[in-house]
């Protein structure tokens, strides 16, 4: 199986190289057969890699420790659901997994781009336009595959044997990865990172072909949404993992690897907004192309940061030599983007100028500007240790304070824009329209601010955040209400049903608004950290500790043992207002295969706050167990917000019922073809 797996990876590499070379030559010389065979080779990479991945999983389940990767990352006692996670828990396996996902995306793109017999004749159909771009996009995807498959074959093979002997058992999976969130966090994150290769491929293909029309931008937007959805959920699950596993009471530490995932998310978000300006008004074409390029390059850069050991991080793989490969690939990719852009720049001329600063277009421009400032600040802070080492010969890291100080005001402004943007009209908004739309939400925001002040809260950031949250929520609710009211009058249905109908008529817009609600909830959850409390202390039998509204009492201490780990737990009673409300079990595990100890957080989560307990081991001097206790208000809203974002994104990805809307609500009197033609 080991030999066969290695062979399958090699076959995939050969196929990808062929697809790339034949595709490039086929396009340059206009050789149809070469282009078709290149496309088919790109398709075939996926089954080949699927075989390879299945072989590796088979070897993991067979505990075949002759394979170095498995001896390093698995062990016999590892439960089967964590054995799957072995696939992506180390450098080599995760690179194979990455290539497999990339080939899977290419496979779906190619199958989706096929024309059913009979359709090819209609040159004017959108499907035809899609098909026309697929061959070149698939060559670009094959080019990206060549790079990753080269790594899989020549730099980090998952099927390499141990140099000598076969150990009786493996070193085991890193204890930090033995959590259920870890089973799905990396695949989702990777689906996000890798997915940005698809919009990149279509965008570059359209630029190289100087493809007229907007079809390519629709395709690019759709695929960006898919990757963005996965990346968003992957990032939030990463935060959830950090929160539940790392035991420091927080979920986001501005760690380089967290930042690396956040960067393409920011540029991707910017693109999802600026793309609307191109679709609606033919504006910002150059900007959009560069946002797509930047998002892809940042995704690769993020992978590079995680894998090269350039910066140290709890999420990163060990120091390795593959960084050089990434630098070369990134340099080539940047060169290709620049060359394609300068050669075809004239193709990206804007069709309309910006007419007013009080317009939807200006709102999107601000949105993009703010998102990019945030991205730049985070990139700068992340790379500061490297830059300072180059310049001063000394690694200086900027901490949380830097990131918080810069980003909190930026994101509050973004939250404000999230409310304002959807209410601005395209082209120009008069003062009358502004007043009509903003007055109610602004009053509500001010009322919330006054209420918070009256409650004695003084920390400015959470205050502003809550007021803005009320402002944005009011605007979204108003948008749904007004639209539903129009439909309800027409159809005589209830408002709730009309709101659903409204959403399905314009999934993109109302899905987008649902996403904004998710962002608001997430912001509220983050703002809650302004009220966090934490304490720690020894917890011998009957000792007490107070945190937030709770009193904790140590009741007992237990121990357990199984094949994978031994554990010890504190039993803690939780009282609130003199009444017992829960018993919690913060514990520590000692993993036998890897000889590592890991704290297991006990978390009691409600919509209002989390009580988060960490058993930090025994005090070496007194031998008494030490408990760290955290009271984290509103944190559950972060995870709820992420679910709402996911739901909204799925809605936004559904096709709108615009065809039906076109029939029922034609722009008739305003734009009948014949009538308009005479204007």
């Amino acid at each position, binding site marked *: 199986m080991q*030999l*066969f797996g290695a*062979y*399958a990876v090699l*076959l995939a590499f050969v*196929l990808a190289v*062929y697809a790339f070379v034949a595709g490039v030559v086929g396009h340059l010389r206009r050789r*149809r057969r070469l*282009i*078709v*065979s290149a*496309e*088919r080779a790109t*398709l*075939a990479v996926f089954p*080949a890699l699927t075989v390879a991945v299945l072989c590796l999983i088979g070897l993991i389940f067979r505990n075949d420790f002759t394979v170095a990767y498995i001896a390093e990352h698995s062990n016999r006692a590892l439960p089967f659901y964590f054995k799957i996670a072995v696939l992506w828990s180390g450098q080599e396996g995760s690179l194979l997994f990455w290539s497999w996902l990339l080939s899977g995306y290419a496979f779906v793109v190619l199958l989706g781009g096929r*024309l059913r017999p009979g359709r*090819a004749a209609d*040159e*004017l159909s959108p499907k*035809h336009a899609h*098909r*026309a771009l697929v*061959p070149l996009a698939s060559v670009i995807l094959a080019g990206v595959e060549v790079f990753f498959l080269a790594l899989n074959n020549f730099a980090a093979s998952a099927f390499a044997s141990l140099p000598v002997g076969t150990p009786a058992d493996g070193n085991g999976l890193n204890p930090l990865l033995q959590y259920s969130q870890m089973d799905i966090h990396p695949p989702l994150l990777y689906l996000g990172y890798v997915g940005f290769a698809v919009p990149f491929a279509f965008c570059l293909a359209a630029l190289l072909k100087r*493809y*007229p*029309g*907007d*079809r390519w931008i629709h395709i690019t937007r759709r695929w960006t949404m898919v990757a963005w959805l996965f990346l968003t959920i992957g990032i939030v699950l990463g935060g959830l993992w950090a929160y539940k596993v790392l035991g420091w009471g927080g979920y986001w530490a501005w760690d380089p690897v967290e930042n690396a995932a956040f960067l393409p998310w920011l540029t991707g978000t910017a693109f999802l907004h600026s793309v609307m300006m191109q679709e*609606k008004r*033919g504006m910002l074409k150059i900007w959009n192309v560069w946002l797509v390029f930047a998002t892809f390059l940042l995704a690769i850069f993020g992978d590079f940061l995680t894998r090269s050991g350039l910066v140290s991080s709890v999420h990163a793989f060990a120091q390795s030599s593959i960084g050089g490969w990434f630098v070369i690939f990134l340099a080539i990719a940047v060169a290709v983007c620049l060359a394609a852009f300068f050669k075809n720049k004239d193709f990206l001329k804007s069709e309309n100028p910006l007419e007013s600063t009080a317009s939807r277009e200006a709102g999107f421009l601000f949105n993009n500007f703010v998102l990019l400032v945030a991205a730049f600040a985070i990139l700068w802070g992340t790379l500061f240790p490297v830059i300072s080492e180059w310049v001063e010969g000394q690694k200086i890291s900027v901490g949380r304070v830097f990131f918080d100080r810069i980003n909190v005001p930026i994101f509050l402004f973004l939250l404000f824009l999230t409310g304002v943007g959807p*209410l601005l*009209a*395209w*082209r*120009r*908004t*008069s003062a*009358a*329209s502004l007043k*009509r*739309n903003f007055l109610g939400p602004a009053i509500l925001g001010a009322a919330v601010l006054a209420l918070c002040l009256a409650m004695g809260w003084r920390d400015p950031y959470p205050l502003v955040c809550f007021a803005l949250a009320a402002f944005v929520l009011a605007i979204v609710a108003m948008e749904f209400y*007004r*639209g539903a*009211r*129009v439909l309800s009058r027409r159809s005589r249905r209830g408002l709730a049903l009309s709101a659903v109908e409204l959403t399905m008529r*314009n999934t993109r817009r109302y899905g987008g608004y649902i996403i904004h609600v998710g962002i608001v909830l997430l912001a509220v959850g983050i703002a809650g950290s302004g009220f966090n409390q934490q304490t720690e202390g020894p917890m011998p039998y009957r000792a007490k500790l107070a945190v937030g509204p709770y009193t904790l009492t140590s009741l007992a201490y237990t121990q357990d043992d199984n094949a994978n780990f031994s554990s010890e737990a504190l039993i803690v009673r939780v009282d609130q207002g003199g009444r017992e409300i829960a018993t919690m079990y913060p514990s520590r595990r000692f993993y036998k295969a890897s000889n590592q100890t890991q704290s297991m957080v006990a978390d009691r989560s409600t919509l209002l706050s989390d009580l988060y307990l960490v058993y930090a081991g025994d005090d070496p001097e007194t031998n008494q167990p030490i408990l760290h206790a955290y009271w984290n208000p509103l944190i559950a809203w972060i995870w709820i917000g992420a679910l709402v974002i996911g739901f909204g994104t799925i809605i936004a990805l559904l096709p709108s019922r*615009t065809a039906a*809307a*076109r029939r029922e*609500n*034609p*722009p008739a009197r*305003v*734009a009948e*073809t014949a009538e*308009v*033609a*005479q*204007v």
Partner: protein
Amino acid sequence: MTLLAAFACVFFTALAAWFVFAGDERLPEDSPAAARLRALRERKQAIYDNLRDLHFEFLAGKLAQPDYQRSRQMLETEAARVVREIQRCGEAS
């Protein structure tokens, strides 16, 4: 075992080669005139969608009358230009 693996490798290589070279799909021809016409039609559709959106926002009470009138007029002018161009392309082809 090794022999079996070697046999499987040869078999899959042959299968992959057959798959790659056996296809003879017709790729859609995309004449510049058709691509241009398609782009214009997409533009027209986008403008019509914008008009419908505008109308709906007006009905929902988001826009003041003068804002609505001005935007509508601009979109109509743009639509007229695109429709004229489509007609010209249609005649030319």
